[in-house]
Each structure stands twice: as C-alpha cells, then as structure tokens.
C-alpha cells in the first residue's frame, strides 16, 4: 500500500512539479531559438535570470494572484467544473505508464508503475476520451461565441482522432500480444535480426553472414514505424496543440474554448496542456521507444554485469537508476520533439484536419493492421521469435 | 480452442445477398462516377444516367436474390439440416429456414422489380436503395434461422435499420420523413423492450440459445415469464400485432410504395417465422399460458385492424390496417400451435405475399408525375381507363378478403380448420366475423373503380416490369386457389406439402 502511494506520488511530483513548469521554459526557449530571438530572460532574482528558469515561478504567482472572472450568463457550476475535468485526466493518465522494470530487493519485488493494469493501453484511450469533456463544457458553460466555436471544433477533432488513435496502435498490440504496458516494455528489452525475413527465401549466400549480426532493439518504432507516425500525429491532435490547435486558434477565436477563463482556472487548462505533453511523451516512449529499456543492454545483462563487481542488491539499484534515467531521457527527447513540431508547422485548416484524420490516417491504420497481420504470419513461417512486421 | 471450419455452403443464401449488397453499393459509386464526370453535367443527362444505373443495380440485386433463392430451394430439396456457427450454434439451417428464405427472397425480388420504374417516377432513384434492400433481406435470412437470442437480435436490427432508412427514402415528401422517424423511434423502443426481455430470459435461465432457454425454463418462474412476455412484445411490434401496431398506418402510408410492399410481405414472414421457432424451441412446455396470450393478441388484431380499415380513405392506410388484421389471422394459427396450424400459417404467408405485392404493385402502377395516387378517389373510373389493371386489383382484393375462388380463401380455410381442430372456437368465430367486416372495405375499391367516373386523365402506363409482377401474382393467386393440394402439371410439388415439410422442423 505504502509502495503504491509512494510510486503514485513520485510520478505525480515528477510530472507536475518538475516537468510541467520546465516545459513552459523549454517552449519559450525553443521558440526563441527557432525564431532567432533571445527569449525568456526578464524575470530575475537579485539580477540573476538563471537562463529564464524563473519564468515558470513567475507564471504561477501571476496566475494565482489574478482575479477569477466568470462571465455573466455563464453556467457557474459547469464553468467551474470544466477546468477540473480537463486537468484530472491529464494527471491520472501517467498511472499506467511504467518508468522502470520489476526489481527484486531481498524478498520484495516491485514494479515501477503506479497501476499495473491489464488493459493499460485502453486506459490511456479511456482517459483521452474523458478529457474531451473539459473543453466541451468549458466552451458551452462560458456562454461566449468564441468559446462555443472552440468547443464544437474540439469535440469534432477529439472524437475523430480518438478513433484513429485507437486503430493506429492495434498493430502494436498484435506484435507484443498484450495490452499491458509493462509487458510491452519487457518485450522491448530485447533485440531482433533486421534481415531475419531473408530466411524465408533461401539460406544466405556465403559471405553475407554478417547480415545476420545486424540487430535492432525490439522497439515499437522499428517493428511498427508506420504506427509510430500515425500514433504520434493522432495523440498530438488529441492534445490540441499547434499545428492541431483549431479549438484554440488564437488568430480566429481569441483562445477558443477557454477564452472566458482567467486566473488559476485558466492556469489549470494551461497546466493540463503541458502535463499532456509529458503524458504523450511517456506513452510514446513506452509504446514505441522501449520504455525504460536501454538499447542493446537488457536488464539481465546490466544486473549480471554490475553484480559480478558489486553484489546483487546494489546491482538492482544501479539497474533501476539506469532504467529510470533512460526512460526520462526518452521522455525529455520526445518533449523536445513535440516542441520542434509545434514551432515548425503552421496550423491546419479545418477541412485539412478532418481529411487528414478520415482520409489519410484511418486508411493507413487499417493498412497497417493488415500488413502487421501478414507480417506476423510470415514471421511464424520463418521461426518463432524472428522479426515481425 | 480449435475453431471449426465454417460450413460456407450452409450460408450461401445469406452470403449471396450480403455480397450482393456490397457489390451494388460499390457499383453505384463506380458507375455514377463515370456518368457524372465533370460538374457541368446538366440535370437532364444526370437523370437519364441515373435511370440507366438504376436498371443495372436492379439487375445486379435481382441476380443476387435469385442466386440466394436458388441456393435456398436447393438446400430445401436436399433436406439440409445443420446448425451453423463455429463453437456454438447461432443459426439453424433446416426446412423451415430454407422455406422462409426462399419466400423472403421472392418478396424481395418482386419488390426490386416494382422499384425499377417507380423510383425514377418519384425521382428518388438512388443506388443505395438496392443495397439497403439487400441488407435488410440478409437480416431476414439471419432472422428466420436464428436459434440464439444474439443472432435473433442482430438479425432483427439488420432487418430493421435499412427499412427505417428506406421508409424515409423520399426525402422531398414530408410524410415519408415522418414515417422514417416514427418507425425508427418506435422500432428503437421495441428493440429496447426486446433486449430487456432477453436480459431477463438470460438472467432467469442462464442461456441465450433457444434450447438452453427451454431447459432453464423448466422451473418456470416469473422472471422468465416476464422476459418471455417482453420478447414476444418486441417481436409483435415487427409484425404489427395489436397493441403494438400504431406505427403501421403512418409508415405504410408515408414510405415509398415499393418499400411498403417489401416490408409488408418480407418483414411479416421473417417476424412470424422467428416467433414460431422461438415459441416452439424455447417454450415447448408453456403451451397453455402462451396460447392464451397469443389468442388475445390475435383477437385484438383482427377486431381493431378490420374496424379501423373501414374508415380509411387512403388506400395504403387501409392496406396497413388490413395488414394488422391479417397479422391477427396468422396469430390464430399461433394460438392453435399444432403442426397443422404451423403448416397453415406458412401457407398463408406464402399466399399473402402474392396478394400484397400485387395490391401495392397496382398502387405503384398508378403513381405518376412525382406523386402517389393512393387515395380512394384516385381509383375512380380506373376500370374504363385501364381495365386490366382494375381487373387484377379486384382479384387481389377479393383474395385478401378471402372470397372463394381465390388463394386467399384457401389460406384462410386451412387456418380455420387447424384452429377448429385445436379447439380455438372463439378465435375462429372472431376470424369469420371480422372477415365479413373486411368485405366492406375491400369491395369498396372495385365499386369505386367500376362505377364512378374518372375526374382526371392519367397518362401513366403500366411498365413491363410491373406487368410481369402483376401477372405472376395474379397467376399464383388463381393457381393456388384450386391447386393448393393438387399437382395438375405433374411437377411433383404440392404447395401445402412444401409448407408442411417446412413446418415439420421439430420432428
């Protein structure tokens, strides 16, 4: 029980207090770099700006001290409920994402994940679907045309991309044979022969044996490259950040569904968005980038290697630290990648957004499922454990 | 768990119509893309192209239905007997289901032929029509062979959903929209009632398959009984038995007439067949109580259907109430519940198909100028203008009324005999009495056609496809009036024997 609470608190604290503020800073800096500006550097403490790292703190103080306005004619209850409904799913989504493997210390074993449920991936989809309510209710309850338009756009966009998001990762379920994120992470802690499919045709010609030595980590991104692209697109569209920010669309709708929010209620929407960036990074890392797995160094290798020098208990600890570090560096990389995308592409037009979802991603997802099934059938022909997809 | 191989041959009829639906759907897309290249096509060309596409699609769907019927008849002759479904039986392919499949196929085929000229006349010639019709037919094929609540429900939905859309196919006409909406809402409620009943049945017996339910039912119990009542209510809605008939007049009147004809014959057949199978398989021991319940429904339907039909002045509305009344007659057979009664019911459904399709075909033949000619005044003086049409209409109406010399009489006769044998004297009296009432409204139309003057000049002609349908229906009615049990041409097939074989699905 204590362990569960500790794990939950750890992930909550890391994500909300460490990552989310940091990301606002990364976003400012990244945009500044990409737009050839100096960027956030005004907030200072006794003249020291710490590279603009004080800005997140200044944000919080500003948001907390602002007046909380509710527009006349708004539905007060739903208006107050909406930011909460927006923030809570973002906060609890990280529960199923494993940030470390299973470790044994003496008699106790524990897995570094807050909730190791059987249908972890579905949990992510469920949470994603509930997150819609925040924006929908915010838009409706505000009684403002900007908000309403934003909410309508948000609904259509999120519903559409939810469907394709679910379909795009079916290939991953098939390859790893599980919906459990911890299982998937363990499965990704190995490598596979890139040219394994050549076995199907004939034995390799002499001198080409080195082909067999080329191995890649058994990661989702290598097994399911198409699914990776599709999933990343969909999940970013779910988060409604540029280039998918039609519900907010500053140039048309002021701030879309949260136009009529101020103070910390606005802050909650803002925070939810940044936490979702981390959640996206975590989910993509767990599904496609091997989660906590270190490429080419499986858990046994690390543990055995360190244990031969320093003893087993210490080896487990080291291994755990390496894994957690590995996971969070992947998360940081993916967060940065999202920032890069966010500041590189212009906003979609609404019809383009829908066309992309229904006419591009949906058929490609179905194609991916079909190809994966064919690939797995082939892989069964070759040998158990050989390459899939 | 090893999945058994699918017995594809068993599902041939279902497969033919389902694939036919998909092909029709795609064919429409491909053909209309070729026909409407470029935006600047003028409406006239578009209309002509649509008419051509419509003929192609009608031909394709006819082919699918004919293949399905052929397969069904072949299975029937083979004495096909197999439970279909990998692992657990979902569908039972036997004489009853193949008989009903062929019957429904015939109804669908005639409806397709009715539509060929009717759709362009109403300017609703869209390719989806045929696809929806085929999908609904597929649903009925499932329904008539369902031996599990799951396949029953899915079959029912697959039957109904396309018909909701088909009822509203004439979007320019307010009544058509009303019909679709009304049918959909009421149908949704009926579905919910049916599902609730199924949930209770499953909760009480722990089974969803009919035989399992009959075993679980052995203990009796109120829960199962109320589940049963709700399931019967849900199915009674589909076959428009009083008191679940309120949708019938509005939908029959509002829907395009070809759709009305389609659902009047096929849905009724499918609904009664599945009800028959459900009652016989799931409740072999419930005879007494259920037959009282069914008897009440039968009596109410006959009374209300016939009395309400008298006061209608729209032909389609009148026929709707007549359909309610006929559902009541059929329910008399259900109340009787003997093998002879099942035979009579099946034979009745067979004859009913020809009379109903024929009547609606006449209504269709009158439609012109983008509107229906379906009020009773519209029939005035028809005999002088289009005597053949008036003659066959009279024949169909006489048959519906059950006047000797028509197949309708023979159908009613067998039903009455079976009911008397089973001791349902009260119901038989109601049947005979209300049939007398029905003479009044059925014979009103011939009176109008032959004895009144036409006010307007119709310039519509009976198209060749309609002539085929009318001739077929009229011939069938005359033939079975005299040879229901005989075989004058030495084909070795006697209609009543066929129905008897189908009704003998229990052994």
């Amino acid at each position, binding site marked *: 029980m204590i362990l569960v609470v500790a794990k939950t608190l750890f992930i909550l604290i890391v994500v909300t207090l460490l990552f989310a503020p940091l990301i606002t800073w990364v976003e400012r800096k990244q945009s500044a770099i990409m737009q050839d500006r100096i960027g956030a550097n005004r907030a200072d403490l006794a003249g020291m700006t710490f590279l603009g790292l004080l800005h997140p703190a200044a944000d919080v103080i500003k948001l907390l001290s602002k007046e909380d306005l509710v527009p006349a004619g708004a*539905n007060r209850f*739903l208006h107050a409920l909406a930011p909460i409904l927006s923030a809570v799913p973002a906060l609890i989504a990280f529960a199923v994402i494993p940030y470390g493997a299973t470790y044994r210390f003496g008699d106790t074993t524990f897995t570094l994940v807050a909730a190791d449920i*059987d*249908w972890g991936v*579905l949990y992510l*989809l*469920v949470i994603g*679907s*509930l997150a*819609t*309510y925040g924006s*929908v*209710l915010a838009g*409706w309850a505000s009684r403002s045309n900007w908000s*309403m338009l934003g909410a*309508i756009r948000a*609904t259509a966009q999120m*519903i559409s991309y*939810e*469907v394709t998001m679910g379909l795009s990762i079916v290939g991953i379920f098939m390859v790893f044979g599980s*919906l459990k994120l911890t299982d998937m992470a363990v499965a990704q802690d190995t490598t596979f022969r890139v040219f394994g499919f050549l076995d199907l045709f004939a034995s390799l010609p002499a001198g080409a044996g080195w082909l067999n030595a080329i191995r890649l980590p058994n990661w989702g991104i290598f097994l399911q490259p198409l699914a990776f692209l599709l999933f990343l697109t969909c999940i970013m569209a779910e988060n409604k950040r540029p280039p998918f920010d039609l519900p907010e669309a500053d140039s048309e709708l002021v701030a879309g569904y949260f136009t009529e929010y101020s103070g910390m209620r606005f802050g909650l929407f803002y925070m939810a968005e940044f936490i979702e960036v981390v959640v996206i990074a975590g989910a993509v890392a767990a599904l496609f980038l091997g989660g906590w797995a270190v490429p080419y160094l499986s858990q046994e290798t690390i543990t055995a290697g360190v244990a031969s020098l320093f003893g087993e208990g210490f080896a487990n600890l080291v291994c755990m630290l390496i894994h957690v570090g590995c996971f969070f560096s992947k998360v940081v990389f993916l967060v940065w990648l999202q920032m890069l995308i966010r500041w590189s592409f212009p906003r979609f037009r609404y019809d383009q957004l829908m066309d992309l979802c229904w006419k591009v991603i949906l058929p490609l997802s179905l194609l991916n499922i079909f190809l994966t099934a064919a690939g797995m059938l082939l892989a069964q022909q070759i040998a158990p454990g050989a390459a899939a997809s | *768990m090893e*999945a058994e191989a*699918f017995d594809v041959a068993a599902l041939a009829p279902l497969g033919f119509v389902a694939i036919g*639906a*998909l092909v029709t759907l795609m064919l429409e897309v491909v053909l209309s893309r070729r026909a409407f290249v470029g935006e600047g096509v003028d409406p006239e060309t578009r209309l002509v192209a649509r008419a051509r596409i419509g003929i192609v699609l009608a031909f394709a769907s006819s082919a699918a239905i004919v293949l399905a019927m052929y397969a069904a008849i072949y299975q029937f002759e083979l004495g096909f007997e197999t439970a279909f*479904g*990998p*692992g*657990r039986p*979902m569908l039972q392919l036997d004489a009853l289901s193949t008989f009903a499949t062929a019957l429904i196929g015939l109804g669908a085929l005639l409806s397709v032929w009715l539509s060929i000229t009717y759709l362009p006349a109403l300017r609703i010639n*869209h390719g*989806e029509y045929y*696809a*929806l019709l085929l*999908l*609904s037919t597929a*649903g009925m094929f*499932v329904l008539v062979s369902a031996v599990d609540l*799951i*396949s029953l429900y*899915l*079959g029912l*939905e*697959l039957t109904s*959903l*396309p018909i909701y*859309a*088909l009822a509203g*196919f004439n*979007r*320019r006409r307010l009544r058509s929209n009303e019909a679709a909406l009304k049918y959909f809402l009421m149908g949704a409620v009926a579905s919910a009632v049916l599902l609730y009943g199924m949930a209770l049945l499953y909760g*009480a017996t*722990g089974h969803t398959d009919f035989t399992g339910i009959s075993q679980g039912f052995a203990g009796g*119990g*109120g*829960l*199962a*009984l*109320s589940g049963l009542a709700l399931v019967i209510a849900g199915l009674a809605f589909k076959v428009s038995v009083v008191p679940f008939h309120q949708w019938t007049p509005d939908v029959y009147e509002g829907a395009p007439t070809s759709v009305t004809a389609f659902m009047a014959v096929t849905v009724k057949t499918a609904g009664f067949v599945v009800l028959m199978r459900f009652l016989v398989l799931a409740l072999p021991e419930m005879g007494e109580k259920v037959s009282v319940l069914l008897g009440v429904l039968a009596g109410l339907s006959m009374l209300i259907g016939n009395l309400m039909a008298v006061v209608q002045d729209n032909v389609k509305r009148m026929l709707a109430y007549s359909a309610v009344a006929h559902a009541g007659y059929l329910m008399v057979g259900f109340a009787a519940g003997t093998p002879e009664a099942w035979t009579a019911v099946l034979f009745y459904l067979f004859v009913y198909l020809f009379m109903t399709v024929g009547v609606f075909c006449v209504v269709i033949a009158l439609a012109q100028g983008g509107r229906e000619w379906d009020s009773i005044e519209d029939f005035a003086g028809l005999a002088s203008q289009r005597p053949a049409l008036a003659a066959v209409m009279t024949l169909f109406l006489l048959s519906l009324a059950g006047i000797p010399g028509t197949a309708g009489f023979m159908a009613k006769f067998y039903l009455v005999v079976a009911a008397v044998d089973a001791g349902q004297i009260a119901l038989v009296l109601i049947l005979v009495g209300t049939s007398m009432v029905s003479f009044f409204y059925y014979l009103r139309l011939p009176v109008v056609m032959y004895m009144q003057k036409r006010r307007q000049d119709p310039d519509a002609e009976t198209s060749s496809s309609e002539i085929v349908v009318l001739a077929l229906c009229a011939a069938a009615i005359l033939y079975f009036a005299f040879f229901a049990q005989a075989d004058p041409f030495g084909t070795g097939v006697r209609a009543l024997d066929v129905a008897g074989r189908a009704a003998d699905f229990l052994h």
Partner: protein
Amino acid sequence: MSFEMFLFYAFAFLAVFSAVAMIGFVRHIVAAAMSLVVTMVSLAGIYVLMHAELIAAIQILVYAGAIVVLFLFVIMLLDLRDGGLGPAARGQNLVKAVGVGGTVTIGTLVVASVSGVFSVNPLVESLPEGFGEHRALGIALFTDYALAVELVGLVLLASIVGAVILAKRKID
C-alpha cells in the same frame, strides 16, 4: 454488507438517480447529457464489480467518451441553449421518468422476488480462468461469436448507408 455490496448499491443508486435526473429534473439539456455520463460511468463501475474490466473500459470509452460527446456536439451545433425544457415540461418529464422507471424497477423486483431469484445461488459458481480479460473476450469473439461479429459489421454498414442517405445535404 460487504464492501463490494456497498459499492454495488452506491453505483446502482447513482446510475438510476442520474438516469431519472436526465429525463426528469435537470435544467439544461447539457446538464441532462452530463447526467447520462454519470449513469454510464456508474454502469462501468458495476461492470468492474462483476470482474468485467474490459467491458467497463469499453463502456466508458464508447458511451461516455464518444456517444455522449456526440450528443453534446449536436446540442451545441443546434445551439439548444435553454433547450425548451420549461418548468412545466420538466415537471411532466419528472412524473413520466419516475413513473416509468419506478414501474419497471418495482415490477422487476416483485417478479424477481416472487420467482425466488434472490434466494437461489448464482448460475455460475466460480469464474473461469481469465474471465473478463481482453484475451478471453477476443478469443470468444473470433471463435464462438465470429458470425455475430460479422453480422454486427453488416448492421453498422446498413446504419451508415442509411444515415448518409437520409442526411445528405444535396439530393438530385
């Protein structure tokens, strides 16, 4: 009363209460939709108590996450702000909702207690291995119920074609 039973009654009360609230006494049509969400989520809770976790997840994903959101979408598109649910209509609706709900519930309870459902043992003594997990469900769907799955496909096709033909903007 065990904790599970307590949870069951809590969820059951919540489900019924918000279902009645949806028809009966909420002021705004959006609030009605939100009551429906509560009903859906409570049902999911009951499914979890029945060890059907996957069904619970799908219940939330599909009903709360998609269908009710679509309701909201339509409500907003049609801009049904005060929804035409005047106090009189609401009162009537409440009477109807309580009437229908009460009748069905009481009827079921009476029938169930008369038939002795409450006293008999559950039909299934112990749950089979892997009950309610996605693996067991998937295998069942693609073996025993393969035909049903295919039929559902046809049903969905029919409804899509029907919806498109009825709702298409342009007809010629």
